[in-house]
């Protein structure tokens, strides 16, 4: 009986795997990067495009350039279902393959990995998510959050709302609601928003939505009662589409509903149909697939049948996020190679590359990403890069950028961030390193 089940399983697996076995990369002599992904579960709508973008860019680098300066990148996906425990299991499993960096793709998992990073000597690259306090490189040398953080994003969104209202001083007395995923991720923006509410005198209401976010009736009842002028949302996965649908159902003005950069993907707005028209979202890179890099991906990856997803899904905001994330990682490794030579690098060397990354406009142009994202300069003190934020809007068919680069309020965010870094660093018994001494 048991044998038969085993047999059926092996047969089923063999049948399923036959056509897919080609997409393999030889290990050894390559730089290994584990990818914690979630292609199943309630967060799959958000997880799939990111993972595809990531893999496609690495495939592009390997196929077109033969790797980074000739050194191939190897990767292995591990399914986390956005679940912290599974993420840790994945990390522990892949740790044995001496990875140079890890992209946790989840704030919860990032919180788990931040303390492990200096012990295991693995760079934690939490691009635009994770622990904001870790953006102070003096306390957290192994964690990178550039191009920008949740706190910077929240301040940039408030600045954007201010400009829409006709000036930051006009925010006084306005009602702004923050609907957030009730998890470390969703809560990250709260302290900044509270600070800004005090500073600019707007009325802030924090509305938590519990995991996984399919049930939001009570939240939107509160929204109706409150009737806010603006809504900012930190949602993820299935929570986003539910929120957009609910907002459309109560007739909220969609152009006053702004999602953060994890809440503004095609999969978040399409289910709401026409109701989603006008919905806005923050981002730090352009949507769409008409950049040179996309043409290269089509030519070198999809036309060779090595694409991770569907060609039509290219250009979704989260797909592009995966591309940007992979590009940052690749460029950081390239920076490290500039100092340590074109070989398989250690994680320490890659960490140096991250810390000294200076991605200029010119370099972005060479990468086929002109206008795709903002140049970034990382320093020892500043692991966030303090990047500006764009606002994109859904017109019913596609996303278009509707703002200039909005600068975050560094004067508000940075002191808070440094304060938090001390608190978080002390918790882990870290000492502050002296950046001047490392120059």
């Amino acid at each position, binding site marked *: 009986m048991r044998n038969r089940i085993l047999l059926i399983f092996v047969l089923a697996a063999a049948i*399923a795997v036959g056509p897919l076995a080609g997409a393999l990369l030889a290990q050894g002599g390559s730089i290994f990067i584990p990818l914690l992904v979630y292609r*199943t579960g309630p967060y799959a709508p958000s997880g799939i495009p990111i993972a595809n973008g990531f893999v496609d860019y690495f495939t592009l680098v390997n196929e077109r350039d033969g790797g980074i300066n000739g050194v191939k990148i190897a990767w292995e996906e591990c399914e986390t279902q956005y679940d912290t425990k599974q993420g840790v299991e994945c990390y522990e499993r892949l740790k*044995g393959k001496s990875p140079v960096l890890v992209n946790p793709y989840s704030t919860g998992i990032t919180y788990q990995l931040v303390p492990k990073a200096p012990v295991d000597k693995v760079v934690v690259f939490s691009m635009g998510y994770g622990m904001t306090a870790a953006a102070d490189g003096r306390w957290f040398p192994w964690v990178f959050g550039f191009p920008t953080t949740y706190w910077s994003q929240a301040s940039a969104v408030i600045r954007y709302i201010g400009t829409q209202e006709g000036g930051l001083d006009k925010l006084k007395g306005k009602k702004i609601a923050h609907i957030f995923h009730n*998890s470390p991720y969703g809560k990250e923006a709260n302290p900044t928003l509270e600070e800004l509410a005090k500073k600019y005198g707007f009325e802030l209401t924090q509305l938590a939505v519990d995991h996984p976010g399919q049930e939001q009736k009570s939240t939107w009842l509160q929204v109706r009662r409150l009737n806010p002028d603006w809504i900012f949302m930190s949602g993820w996965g299935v929570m986003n589409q539910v929120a957009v649908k609910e907002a459309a159902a109560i007739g909220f003005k969609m152009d006053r509903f702004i999602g953060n950069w994890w809440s503004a993907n095609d999969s978040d707005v399409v289910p709401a149909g026409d109701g989603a028209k006008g919905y806005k979202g923050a981002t730090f890179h352009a949507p769409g697939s008409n950049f040179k890099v996309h043409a290269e991906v089509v030519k070198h990856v999809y036309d060779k049948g090595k694409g991770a997803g569907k060609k039509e899904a290219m250009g979704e905001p989260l797909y592009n996020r995966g591309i940007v994330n992979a590009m940052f990682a690749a460029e950081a490794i390239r920076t490290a190679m500039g100092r340590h030579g074109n070989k398989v690098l250690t994680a320490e060397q890659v960490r140096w590359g991250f810390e000294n990354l200076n991605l200029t406009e010119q370099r972005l142009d060479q990468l086929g990403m002109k206008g795709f994202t903002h140049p970034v300069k990382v320093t020892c003190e500043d692991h966030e890069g303090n990047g500006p934020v764009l606002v994109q809007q859904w017109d019913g068919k596609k996303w278009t950028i509707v703002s200039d680069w909005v600068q975050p309020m560094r004067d508000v965010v940075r002191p808070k961030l440094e304060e938090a870094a001390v608190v978080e660093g002390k918790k*882990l018994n870290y000492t502050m390193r002296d950046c001047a001494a490392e120059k």
Partner: protein
Amino acid sequence: MIYREAGQFKSSYASDQAIFPIVQDRWVALALLAAAVVVPAALGSDYWLQAILIPFLIYALAALGLNILTGYAGQLSLGTGGFMAVGGYAAFKFATAFPGLNILLVFVLSGLAAAVVGLIFGIPSLRIKGFYLAVATLASQFFLIWLFNKVAWFSNYAPSGTITAPARTVFGVMVTGPNASPEARYVVAIGVALLFALLAKNLVRGRVGRAWMAIRDRDIAAEIIGVRPLRTKLLAFGISSFLCGIAGAEYVFLYLGSAETQAFDINLSFLVLFMVIIGGLGSVLGSFLGAAFIVMVPIFLANAPHALGLHMPVALQKQLELMVFGGLILFFLIVEPNGLARLWQITKEKLRLWPFPH
């Protein structure tokens, strides 16, 4: 033949009442104990310790706790995740408020905190039975998680609501925090698990355990023969929550390192309940077997295609894993509804007759 006890004479009450009355059982227990020390050392891999064995021991402790309540006392509970959360958050509060406190003492204190909460939520069990009690304990699960999420004091006002285990030592060896070696964590986890397994085993064999089982089998009959239902049920709730609380504290301090309330969500309650059901209701051994099954089989299934040289997309692999795992649960429940512990018992009986079955 292997398990034949012929010739083993008991000459004292103590030897008759031993946990392992048969010599062969003692050898198996000793062999397992030796394996628990030798195998991890031989494997020498952080992955095995940190991702498989430590969670296994912690889940086993939680399953043991729930088994006392559900398996022995017959009170169906879906609040395990909540009680573990009490343990985890209490341990965090104790450890940060009193940095000098020995971490093992912190674990015990957090277990006591969970026990108090368990007692409070156990009070309705006098009036509510069966599935209705499950719903009542489900309420405790949601209430506790909500509480820890809502009141920032529990996480020391961390903006993200995440609690992080501070570094603590036992006899000069670092056992918690990121710098603690997996070996040290493992030793603590197995020490705690064995200690409480021993305590639980003796508890359920004694007067208290018999009272629990009497309540489980027929509460009115138990009342008539002099078992006081409220006290007995509350004791089960208290001890069960105590063990779950310690498991929760270990869960944060030895396994995850840092956690948020979501780590203790309803899925955890179900997971532990499944461990108890699959392992065997009313069996200490079953708690361990069930935990091993639930922790290790998915990991084995996730790694099996890789080991076989099959490479498949992770999503497909995950779906297959869930399907096969679900299938295996069904398979075991159909083949042996009384759980893996009963399978082990049957195996022993078979071995006793082997090679000459009737």
